[in-house]
């Protein structure tokens, strides 16, 4: 009995040694990593908090004297970065519109709203609320033209509109590509693959600058909406392949069973094929949406005053020219919060689905 009771237990010290100091190489790796992590934490803490200046009281001069970050540039210019050229007294509308979008994103992450109709209502409703908050003209809000939109809300607007136009378009592309008619599927495949092998910038450039030559003047519309259409086209080419991948994961028997029951094409697609395809494609779809949000920042090159451009303006003039690191850190943080939380959510979904399929 005594020998059964006796199981040698590792002490804390032993297990530490096994994990971090088992060999000479491992010890060196541990020490190096610990040193780098410590250095990063110390530097960031020192720069961002301990030695930083937060208030605008001393102006730019107080910042130059400080050892750390100069957050007063954000305190002084945050309205410019977030809202761009939007009229000052209407800033609450721009801010509220961004809050609407955050609420909308959180709602569509909850499984209870995962049906085609609920998602469509949330997104279209959210988009309309966003649009009318920004543009005004109803309920006594003054009209603010698109040309004055800027900063974070312009980024969000382009992103929302891209996904809203691109998602239905991608379903159409995916269905066309797996059509039984060879010429339709072949032509669609060529279109999708060509769009996918071009850089997004060249497509944006074509839509912003070249399209006015190519279209009759009544059809070319505002530059902002042309760029949105270009981004939606690019998004839909990638998303179509993701949905097609999801469709390939639906067992063939499902469609055959539906056919044998005499269910018509549109019903087969909308009630049987698409719901299952979307479930399969969900993690990849979230990933693509995250990428699209990051790519929205490219419109700065076409000359839009989105968050990156307004950030450049915030440090580019006058007394704050030295404080570019702080402004970029702020913008990076805005992107990081959104992208990181969505991609964590995608990873969580992936794990959850892997469990449910076991």
């Amino acid at each position, binding site marked *: 009995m005594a020998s059964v009771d006796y199981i040698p237990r590792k002490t804390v010290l032993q297990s530490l040694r096994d*994990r*971090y100091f088992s060999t000479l190489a*491992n010890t060196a*790796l*541990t020490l190096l*990593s*610990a040193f*780098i*992590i410590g250095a*990063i934490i110390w530097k960031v803490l020192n720069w961002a908090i301990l030695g930083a200046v937060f208030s605008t009281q001393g102006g730019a001069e107080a910042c130059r004297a400080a050892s750390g970050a100069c957050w007063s540039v954000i305190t002084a210019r945050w309205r410019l970065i977030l809202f761009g050229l939007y009229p000052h007294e209407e800033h609450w509308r721009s801010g509220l519109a961004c809050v609407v979008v955050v609420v909308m994103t959180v709602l569509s992450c909850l499984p209870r709203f995962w049906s085609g109709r609920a998602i469509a209502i949330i997104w279209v409703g959210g988009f309309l609320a966003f649009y009318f908050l920004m543009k005004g003209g109803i309920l006594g809000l003054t009209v603010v033209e698109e040309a004055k939109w800027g900063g974070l809300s312009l980024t969000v607007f382009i992103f929302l509109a891209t996904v809203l136009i691109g998602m239905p378009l991608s379903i159409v592309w995916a269905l*066309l590509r797996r059509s039984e*008619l*060879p*010429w*339709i599927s072949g*032509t669609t495949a060529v*279109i999708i693959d*060509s769009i996918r*092998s*071009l*850089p*997004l*910038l*060249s497509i944006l*450039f*074509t839509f912003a*600058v*070249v399209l006015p*030559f*190519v*279209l*009759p003047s009544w059809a070319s519309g505002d530059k902002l909406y042309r760029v949105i259409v270009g981004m939606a086209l690019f998004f839909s080419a990638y998303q179509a392949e993701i949905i097609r991948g999801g469709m390939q994961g639906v067992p063939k028997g499902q469609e055959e069973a539906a056919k044998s029951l005499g269910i018509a094409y549109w019903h087969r697609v909308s009630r049987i094929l698409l719901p299952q395809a979307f479930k399969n494609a969900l993690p990849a779809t979230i990933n693509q949406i995250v990428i699209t949000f*990051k*790519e929205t*920042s*490219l419109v*700065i*090159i076409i000359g839009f005053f989105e968050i*990156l451009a307004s950030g*450049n303006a915030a440090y580019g003039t006058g007394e704050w020219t030295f404080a*570019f*690191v702080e402004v*970029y850190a702020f*913008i*990076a943080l805005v*992107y*990081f919060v959104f*992208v*990181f939380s969505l*991609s964590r959510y995608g990873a969580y979904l992936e794990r959850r689905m892997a469990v449910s399929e076991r």
Partner: protein
Amino acid sequence: MLALWNSQGFRRIFLQVAYVGGIFALIITCVAVARHNLDAQGISSGFDFLYKSTGWNIGFSLIDFKAVDPYWKVLMIGLLNTLFLGTIGLVLATIVGMIIGLARTSENDLARLLGTIYVETFRNIPLIVQVLFWYAVATRFPPVKQAYSFADSIFISSRGLYVPGLNVTGLAAFLAICALLLALGLIVWFSAANRFKRIEPNIRRKTRWLIFASGTAVAIGILYLGRIPETPLVSIPALKGLNFRGGIRLTPEFAALVIAIAIYGGGYIAEIVRGGFKAVGRGQIEASQSLGLNRFQIFTRVKFPLALRAMLPILTNQYVWLMKATTMGIAIGFTDFFMVVSISINQSGQTLELIGILMGGFLLINFTLAAVLNRINKAIALKGDQLRM
């Protein structure tokens, strides 16, 4: 008529003709309208403009360029710049990705944590924000007179990084790098492809050395031929007057782009590397341990080759993506292919032709890259009955 519509055969043909015809009609209408609009501006169509001189100069070029040179030359320089930036960016991103990816799969918690911090930080910030940030950093170094110097041969200033270099033309340097990369690719292919598996190990080793030696020889030969006459072979930058003379100058634009692409792409490649190593079965490693291989042998002979097979298809997509990301040069004024085309459109007005050239150029680069990598992938993939799970 209704009977005709009800026949399935007719409907199939009708739908296909309508779809394809509709797309062609759209394209033809667009081109016709564009022709009309451009004619109204007095811009003649066709590719004759390629032989006209540009009248403007270019910021970054590997070969000599003057304002009197024709458009085809400026477009070629743009393409060359894109390839140059892409090649260096891809190589650096792969190295960064390998290191971070290995840290992410390490058994050491701290090293893994470090890798995670890297990946989560740099992947979640848009590339263009990083490009603009590094550009702002690169242009804020002290002016030439007060440049930081290391051992009096490397200088960092707001006008760029100056390092000692060989007195060769930029084109020759690029070709030499290509030759070395080609030799490296050949060695990988030769080592991994199944068709060479039966050759004796001794001869295999010798062949590898031969490929390596001949690749190096070709590179040196190219460098020798591309030497700028009547100069010493090695040139060291030195302050003369208001600027540095000699050495290689990396412009702030180029440096910012390379750094951003290497860091951002490295984050993505690290995840691909991690996925590749995770795909190597535990049994494979246990089997090689029981055969008495040491850790180094397990890594080079078992883990890495198997992981590479899992990585390569995804890596291909990532490389194509990074190649496309070089177009961000326009944000900070690096004259890559895209920027050259867009300046040309502004200057010459030959919109349609230049857009066609732009798209054709990128289709060519990306399809070639994908084809080469797919070829390597096919050569090293497991075949048929080798697949035992």
